[in-house]
């Protein structure tokens, strides 16, 4: 919304030392967001009034004129002009060489088709005064003094504020200059020039009979209607159209402009119907002169073309203004083309009404039609604005269309009650909330200036809410705290640390473990953290063999790729693999994030519901892709093991036999087992999925249920004394069949000797040259140590013999030659 500085000054005098910029920053700190400041008419000081002495057709161009223009002081300039409306005898606006126009053009003397032009005659557009309703140059009044600055003739220097509409969504009273002026008055402690409703002077007896019937009183708390006769539709006076144009509203004709003017001034949308186009009520004697406005719900199936020419389908949830036969406007949104004011209109029905804000919003959303009227009504306007608007509109009509007469009386149907309090408000409460003692006199003046009614009862103020703030805006004492705080100025409130009892915050284990694990992964294990979306796409889920029906569906996503909530981090990370494989040789990534299940979890939905929210687990997954690495399985397995070790969680990796996930390589899948329960998976991406995503290298994957992991974490380390006696380390290389499982070998080693064998480390698995086909070589180091004495090498050798024998029996293992 645009607000004009000059217009504000109709209702408040801004102190001389307050520049328009200073006013804007003050408003920003007190009331609203201002997105831009536009200076209009700055250039008018540099333009001068000229008199077109002669005008001839340019000898070398059909559409151009060659003129001689008197600019005062005896100076006559040759100016070439392209405007169609230029004529001798006009007073015009002249820009001389050197002047820069708002559009950035700097004028210079130049030759136009053989004639030197010594300046330019300007249009309203070129002066930055918006599109003119007249084509061509601006013609000034005959009284303009030749040679004078144009700014003395056109008082159009103004500053326009672009207000952020969103910042006013709770302040229905600020949707016009009047309300904004009241804020300005309160901020600067200036007097607000209240608009006093005067009874229209041009009310006359008339044969016209007019009635208003409000059928749905809840959706239409107030409806004022008046018939105005002797209307002569025509262009608006210059001051009126200039004002409208200054805030970006196109001038149309006097009546439409007046309704718009009132809306921009008070925030009260108005509408004018052509009396003759509203169906006559044939009852009674005055045939043809009786009209009845009916405010009712639309009927299902009813439709109407709005004044923008679009046919609108209506339904019973919408409120319309109707005559006996048809709807003639959609209440609070837009008028109907069937009753629109035209050049021929001589009688109008003027409407100033108040409509339910929820209904207007819903109707406007349903129709996909937001208008200047609907954005105001949907904020919840004060029904008293309707009365203000009607009075102002009639006043302007009387001023602009001299013969116009209000036929009979103004009809006013009201059904509203505002909660004006009073609110009990005590200074102590205020000071505690603000944290600063604000002088009572200051509090009183702030509230008074904002229009609150005050009555002091003991130490407490009884505060009466003004009608324009009693529209779900202000209703509790806290609201008044805000009024005082913002006008007093947040800048004047000094920060003061809370004085409270010291506490120790409860430790959040999940967060602690999360940070620990993330740091280990990134800084210890070379993995980079990814944050993928919480969403999934149906198509992708299928590719991973995941059933979309088991996932929670999004109801109203506007993005085709977001159809469900994810239940696994894997699909997202695989996409990251495909994306990054071309840029880096080694992709090592992990993600920690929420996954969503259909069954109920632990958190309640709250309110009246006894249900619980769907389960949301925290999941951890990581992937490794390294060019040339054909078994990244071992890489991710090591990462998973490191993470569990850091958290002191004893774990095992077991072969995953049955029901391996479809996306996993079933020949390379292990479970992470803790205390007999599966905590996660270590695997590689199945070749099928690899292919369908265009992943060109093998991908190692680990996945861990982080929610469970947190429960298993113990921040406990049981110290074991450092061994007193030295260990003996002996290496062995054995040939076994290719499918021999290391875990089994290990088990048998410890079965052969579990007291003196302290550790077994596999350091090489080899197949190929030198090893018989179908066999492999396992090279490992065994650490022997006694806790009681220094072990002799002979003893270790003996145990080694035993082990070789046992493995020979079990696996046919032979020493590698």
């Amino acid at each position, binding site marked *: 919304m645009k607000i004009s500085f000059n217009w504000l000054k109709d209702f408040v005098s801004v102190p001389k030392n307050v520049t328009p910029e200073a006013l804007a920053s003050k408003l*920003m*700190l007190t*009331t*609203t967001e201002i997105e831009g400041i536009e200076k209009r008419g700055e250039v008018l000081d540099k333009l001068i009034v000229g008199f077109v002495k002669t005008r001839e057709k340019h000898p070398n161009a059909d559409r151009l004129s060659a003129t001689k223009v008197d600019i005062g002081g005896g100076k006559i300039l040759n100016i070439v002009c392209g405007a169609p409306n230029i004529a001798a005898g006009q007073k015009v606006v002249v820009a001389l060489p050197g002047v820069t126009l708002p559009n950035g053009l700097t004028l210079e003397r130049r030759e136009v088709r053989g004639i030197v032009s010594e300046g330019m005659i300007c249009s309203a557009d070129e002066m930055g005064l918006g599109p003119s309703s007249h084509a061509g140059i601006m013609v000034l009044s005959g009284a303009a003094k030749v040679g004078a600055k144009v700014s003395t003739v056109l008082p159009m220097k103004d500053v326009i504020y672009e207000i952020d509409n969103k*910042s006013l*969504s*709770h*302040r229905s009273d600020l949707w016009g200059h009047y309300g904004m002026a009241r804020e300005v008055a309160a901020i600067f402690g200036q007097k607000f020039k209240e608009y006093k409703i005067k009874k229209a002077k041009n009310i006359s007896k008339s044969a016209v009979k007019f009635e208003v019937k409000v059928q749905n009183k809840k959706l239409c708390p107030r409806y004022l209607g008046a018939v105005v006769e002797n209307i002569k539709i025509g262009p608006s006076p210059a001051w009126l159209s200039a004002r409208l144009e200054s805030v970006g509203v196109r001038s149309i004709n006097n009546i439409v402009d007046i309704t718009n003017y009132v809306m921009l001034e008070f925030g009260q949308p108005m509408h004018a119907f052509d009396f003759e186009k509203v169906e006559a009520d044939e009852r009674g004697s005055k045939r043809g002169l009786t009209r009845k406005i009916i405010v009712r719900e639309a009927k299902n199936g009813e439709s109407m073309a709005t004044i923008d020419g679009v046919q609108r389908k209506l339904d019973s949830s919408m409120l319309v203004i109707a005559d006996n036969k048809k709807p003639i406007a959609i209440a609070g949104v837009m008028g109907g083309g069937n009753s629109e004011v035209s050049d021929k209109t001589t009688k109008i029905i003027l409407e100033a009404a108040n409509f339910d804000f929820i209904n207007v919003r819903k109707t406007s959303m349903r129709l996909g039609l937001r208008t200047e009227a609907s954005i105001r009504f949907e904020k919840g306007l004060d029904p008293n604005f309707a009365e203000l608007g009607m009075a102002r509109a009639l006043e302007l009509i009387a001023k602009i269309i001299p013969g116009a007469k209000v036929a009979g009386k103004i009809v006013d149907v009201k059904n509203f009650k505002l909660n004006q309090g009073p609110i009990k408000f005590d200074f102590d409460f205020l000071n*505690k*909330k603000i*944290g600063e003692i604000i002088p009572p006199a200051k509090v009183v003046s702030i509230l008074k200036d904002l229009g609150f009614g005050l009555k002091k009862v003991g130490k407490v103020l009884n505060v009466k809410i003004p009608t324009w703030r009693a529209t779900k805006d202000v209703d*509790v004492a*806290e609201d008044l*705290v*805000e009024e005082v*705080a913002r006008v007093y100025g*947040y*800048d004047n*409130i*000094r*920060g*003061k*640390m*809370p004085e*409270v009892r*010291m506490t120790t*915050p409860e430790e959040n284990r999940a967060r602690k473990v999360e*940070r620990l694990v*993330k740091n280990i992964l*990134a800084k210890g294990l*070379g*993995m*980079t*953290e*990814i*944050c*993928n979306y*919480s969403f999934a796409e149906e198509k992708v889920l299928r590719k991973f063999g995941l059933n979309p029906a088991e996932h*929670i569906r*999004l*109801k*109203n*996503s506007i*993005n085709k790729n*977001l159809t469900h909530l994810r239940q696994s981090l894997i699909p997202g990370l695989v*996409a990251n693999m495909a*994306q990054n494989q071309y*840029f*880096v040789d*080694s992709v090592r990534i*992990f993600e920690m994030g*929420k996954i*969503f299940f259909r069954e109920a979890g632990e*958190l309640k*939905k*709250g*309110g009246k519901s006894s249900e619980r*929210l*769907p389960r*949301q687990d925290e999941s951890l997954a990581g992937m490794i892709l390294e060019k040339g690495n054909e078994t990244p399985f071992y890489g991710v397995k090591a990462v998973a093991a490191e993470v569990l070790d850091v958290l002191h969680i004893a774990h095992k990796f077991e072969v995953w036999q049955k029901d391996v996930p479809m996306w996993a390589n079933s020949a390379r899948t292990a479970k992470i087992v803790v205390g007999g329960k599966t905590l996660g998976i270590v695997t590689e991406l199945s070749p099928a999925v690899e292919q369908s995503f265009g992943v060109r290298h093998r991908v190692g994957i680990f996945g861990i249920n982080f929610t469970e992991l947190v429960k298993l974490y113990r921040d406990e380390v049981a110290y074991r004394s450092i061994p007193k006696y030295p260990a003996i380390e002996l290496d062995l290389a054995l040939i076994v069949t290719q499918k021999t499982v290391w875990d089994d070998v290990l088990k048998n080693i410890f079965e052969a000797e579990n007291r003196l064998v302290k550790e077994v480390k596999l350091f090489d698995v080899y197949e190929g040259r030198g090893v018989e086909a179908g066999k492999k070589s396992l090279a490992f180091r065994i650490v022997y140590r006694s806790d009681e004495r220094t072990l002799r090498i002979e003893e270790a050798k003996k145990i080694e013999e035993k082990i070789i024998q046992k493995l020979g029996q079990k696996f046919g293992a032979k020493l590698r030659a």
Partner: protein
Amino acid sequence: MFQDELQKLKERALNEIRGAHDLDRLREMEIKYLGRKGELTKILRTVGELPETERGPAGNLANQVKQVLASELGRAKKALGEKETGKVGEKEWIDVTASKSKRHLGHLNPISLVQYELEDIFSSMDFMVLDGPELESDYYNFEALNIPSWHPAREMQDTFYVEGDGLLMRTHTSPMQVRTMEKYGAPVRAVVPGRCFRNEATDARHEHTFYQLEGFMVDKDISVANLKAVLEVVAQKLYGPDAKVRLRPKYYPFVEPGVNGEVTCFLCHGKGCRLCKNTGWLEIFGAGLIHPNVLRAGGIDPEKWSGFAFGFGLTRLAMLKYGIDDIRLFCGGDLRFLNQF
């Protein structure tokens, strides 16, 4: 006799010492002459066998020779040492300006980095760090926050609704205000970092998934001045001791009064620049005193307790901190972006 022997020994030893070409040889010399079983030592031991009158001069002479040899050995050692260091340099030289690949470290997402920074600031002021559900109920996301079903704020928030009754993806981290009050009662103070969602089309400045950090404190007589002071501390920790906080009125249904929080632009220190659009201020949080209806929804008596609440845009903070111009990069998974942090 004794003197002659000593003199000969001295000549021989000096010749050999001077002729030694490496330190090993010198060490041999040292042992050969001055060692426990060395030649000079042996002669010295015979001094006692001399007639008493000869003992004195002989002893003196022997000691003189010992000193000469020792100092000559020292000199030779030093000279040879210097020579050998030079040789070592020859053998050991490498090009220290060349680099072999570093050990590859991973990187945390910039959102995590900013989040941890803030979490730590608030932890140091005794705030709990909590976590809340991303899939929320209509009740906690709106109703309990003083945003009834008719409220226009609902439509402004472009909510993702999910199947099921009254379920949605949270549009802010504020639902945790009421959940926390219900669980812990008053007094309480906590921050809640997390993901939020808006059902809107994405471009360089809009993203349907973004991160916030919610914080609130409920205690006795909590005021706007308290809010300002706490956030000033945060601003100063983030942007240095000169950072100031400016509050401006802003409407949020769940706070009253409601404010917008700006901090001094860290790039221009308030002078005005491109980053702060020449205002000298950067808007980084929304805040206010918790609305009595919200306290009530959390089971807390607004007559006895009051509180403030604030919300930081973590995504915005990260964009400002690192000068990131495309919001989609955070969840985009591109390692060329992520590996920079």
